[in-house]
């Protein structure tokens, strides 16, 4: 299996990056996880031509070819950070690689809550018709007190959290299989979805 892990922030110091790096190392026997950074990507500005900048297209291609995507999101002001949202806006507005893509959400925060509200928002966002990702339901991985969570080797020091993450990841592997069957055996208008647009909806043209 080949996954893309998206670091949900442009900050230089990020425990969400550490979490993905730990997952990359810890699950290296089960899957290959390529970590993608969003630092420095252009801010979404809704250009009329609907063409993604080069760097966004590169990320889009990676998402497109991956078997699944893991997003690690911090929480800023009860929601996901602007830079992560900007990337999702680009992808939803241009190439739409997330359609039918299995997604696992994880998140880390300095406080006790572990980015719970940002994760809730992220699920709703990924459910939007232009993204239409297949987000793994009923499983969430919230890492609180993340500043103390990693040792100098980058290993997660909370044993119970490691077990939880392992279970969560195994479920995701299964979920990717199941989703694959769902999609392959019934092509649920994937192509049509890729061409969805609110302008058309509002003119009564798409559905």
């Amino acid at each position, binding site marked *: 299996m080949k996954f893309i892990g998206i670091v949900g*922030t*442009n*900050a*230089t*110091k990020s425990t969400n990056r550490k979490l993905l790096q730990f997952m990359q190392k810890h699950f290296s026997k089960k899957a290959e996880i390529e970590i993608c950074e969003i*630092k420095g990507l252009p*801010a*979404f*500005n*809704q*250009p*009329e031509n609907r063409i993604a900048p080069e760097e966004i297209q590169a990320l889009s291609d990676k998402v497109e070819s991956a078997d699944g995507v893991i997003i690690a999101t911090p929480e*800023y*002001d*009860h*929601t*996901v*950070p*602007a*830079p*992560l*949202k*900007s990337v*999702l*806006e680009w992808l*939803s507005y241009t190439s739409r690689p997330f359609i039918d893509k299995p997604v696992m959400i994880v998140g880390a925060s300095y406080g006790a809550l572990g980015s719970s*509200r940002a994760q809730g*928002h992220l699920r*709703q*966002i*990924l*459910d*939007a018709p*232009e*993204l239409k990702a297949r987000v793994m339901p009923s499983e969430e991985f919230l890492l609180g007190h993340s500043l103390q969570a990693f*040792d*100098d080797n980058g290993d997660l*020091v909370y044993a119970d959290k490691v077990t939880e993450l392992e279970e969560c990841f195994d479920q995701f592997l299964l979920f990717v299989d199941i989703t694959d069957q769902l999609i392959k055996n019934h092509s649920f208008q994937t192509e049509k979805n890729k061409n969805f647009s*609110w*302008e058309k*909806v*509002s003119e009564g043209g798409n559905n």
Partner: protein
Amino acid sequence: MKFIGIVGTNAAKSYNRMLLQFMKKHFSDKAEIEILELTDVPMFDESDDQSDSDIIQMFNTKISDADGVIIATPEHNHSVPSALNSILEWMSFNLHPFDGKPVMIVGASLHPQGSSRAQLHLRQILDAPGVNATVMPGSEFLLGQAQKAFDDNGDLKSEGTVDFLESCFTKFQRFTEIANLLNVPEDLNFKPGTFEVTAKGHNGDLPMSVTLSKDRIEDIDIDTSTETKGIADVVFTRIPQEIVKGQTLNVDVISGASITSHGVIDGVARAVKMAGGNPEILKKRPKASNIVQKDEEYTTDVVVVGAGGAGLTAAAKVLDEGKNVIVAEKFPSPGGNTVRAGGPMNAADPEWQNKFDAIPGEAHRLKEIKDMKLDDIDPEYRDDFKKLQKQIGDYLDSDGKYLFDSKLLFRIQTYLGGKRTDLQGNEIHGQYDLVKILTDHALESVKWLEKVGVSFDKNEVTMPVGALWRRGHKPMGPEGFAYIQALQKYIEDNGAKLMTETPVKELIIEDGKIYGVIARGANGQKITIHAESVVLASGGYGANTKMLKKYNTYWTEIDDDIQTSNSPAITGDGIKLGLSAGADLVGMGFSQMMPVSDPDTGELFTGLQVPPANFIMVNQQGKRFVNEYGSRDQLTQAAIDNGSLFYLIADDEIKKTAYNTSQEKLDAQVKAGTLFRDDTLEGLAKQLKIDPEVLVDTIKKYNSYVDAGSDPEFGKDVFDLKVVKAPFYATPRKPAVHHTMGGLKIDTGTHVLNKDGEIIDGLYAAGEVAGGLHAGNRLGGNSLADIFTFGRIAGENSVEDKVLD
């Protein structure tokens, strides 16, 4: 009423912009709405703070000044656009203009939803603690199918929609009035009296008395007698001053001392509560330092930058010469790194030293020096070296039982101790003329200090940590602070002006000559000091990791989070000032580390302070990695090679030899997590995340070396305690920056030189800000000798040169 309308997208075409423009026009007789665009707002990045940029400041000011804010949000993917997130993140990072601000949410979208889900997200976002807006409940305005909603004039077509928008807006106007009542400062009344609370000190809680009158904080008195003298003063004087001056608890914490700063603020808050007041009101008041004062201008003979030992000494000499001096100090109290010094300063004083008996090993050490090959000595030191060989020969021949010393031994040891080669193969050793000045005149500095009011303990001659010989003159009284206390009194009694919290920002340079400095006052005012000469005595750059890393050529690696034993004020400011005048630099790649420092604070005096005979150093794998008696540089490089963090392992017997601790302090440190303790070695290993088998094996081997009296692994040859008796202790340690040897290039008259070796007219430098003397390694006890000797020269010359002009 004045509102700000924020268009929640940076898109060129936006129905939300049209909606706000319609509102602006339609409600122009009721309120003024100024529309702000997100187009130029940079993407939020917490690692690149742009809070001070024009665009972010503009948003901050306009929102702060407005009665309320209307946000018009589109919906992107069930949420608000990232551009809107980004500005809200900037407005909740270091600036908080939304705090308590009335906000109305509206939204338009192409689909029938009318941004319903984005609006719900936006409400949650505005509720976040960093934003903390007061959002109007109810009256949701959702404009669906917006592309059909406006006519060619940009007016809303549907009368019903306009009616509803009017009712929402009218409600928002009333809501704004009522919500802003919450922002009116509450009256604060205290039950007058003095309230006893505590503040958090470095060594435990400190008693604090807060005196309150009916409506004022009159006085805050903190008993700092248990704190290390000098260091604590910054927090425990400045924070109370600011609280009383501004009648506010909204004060900036002192960088590098946030825990103790908050301790004072929290203590005063508790006193306010005890007096029946609400501390939250005081926390919301404006900062005292926001009250900008008028610019100031002074004229004097000499201005000294930095009020550590070197600066105060230079100032004292200027006064001795009958001239005026102003000392500008960045921090709230004088002292710099000098107050953190262990105390003894080196000076060869054979007459005094000869009264003491020699101790075992000293004759051997002398013989080693005498037997060195002349070829190994750099040419400029050879004459002195030959004379020293003869001195030592005579002493050894006479079978001297007394402690030997001479200026020449001091000179050659300073030279040999400073000789290093960096990673690029560059050799450095002390510049002969500077080393000669130091070693010839250090004793005069001791005598001069005695005149100023420092008394020395003549009953003991000590070898400072990291020194090579017993020639330390130890002041009576509290270590490094003893010097500062005496010097400060001396210069103030003799009419110097000491300006604290006055960082010097630039030199006044005209036609290549220095004519004074421009500094910034505590309240942001510009302070111009005109002077005939400027003495830079601002210290090195041990607390400036970026600068260390930039110049480093000696260590294989310097961690981003490396700590320092230095004052947080020591950030290379004087070196930057010198560079602005074209100064040359020397030896900048060489810095000195204290290998055995607290990993979190860089402090030297935490954990268990015991001789290396009594502990075992193990790395993060639980293995020994170095001879515990290695030199500072050996220990530091070994630690860096082993991932920096390491542990000192010891057993219960250690308490008897630790000179800095008590059972109570040990317990407190274990509780605070700065010291590990366990009843078994296996348990201790687990706490350290070390494989228990490895640690147990390491200790077993070490104990056998102690029994055998020799260490085949690392050659340790002095042993005392084994590790056998539970409980067992592990003190975490990491190298910390201790001294920076490099700095401005100076001549023996402390003139700062430019790249052509010419004197920069009117500019002098003394102490750690200057380079060339200590070269690759500074001997313990030599920094104090340096600052008082070169500080005196700088003070004298800064006046004399003026006369010569």
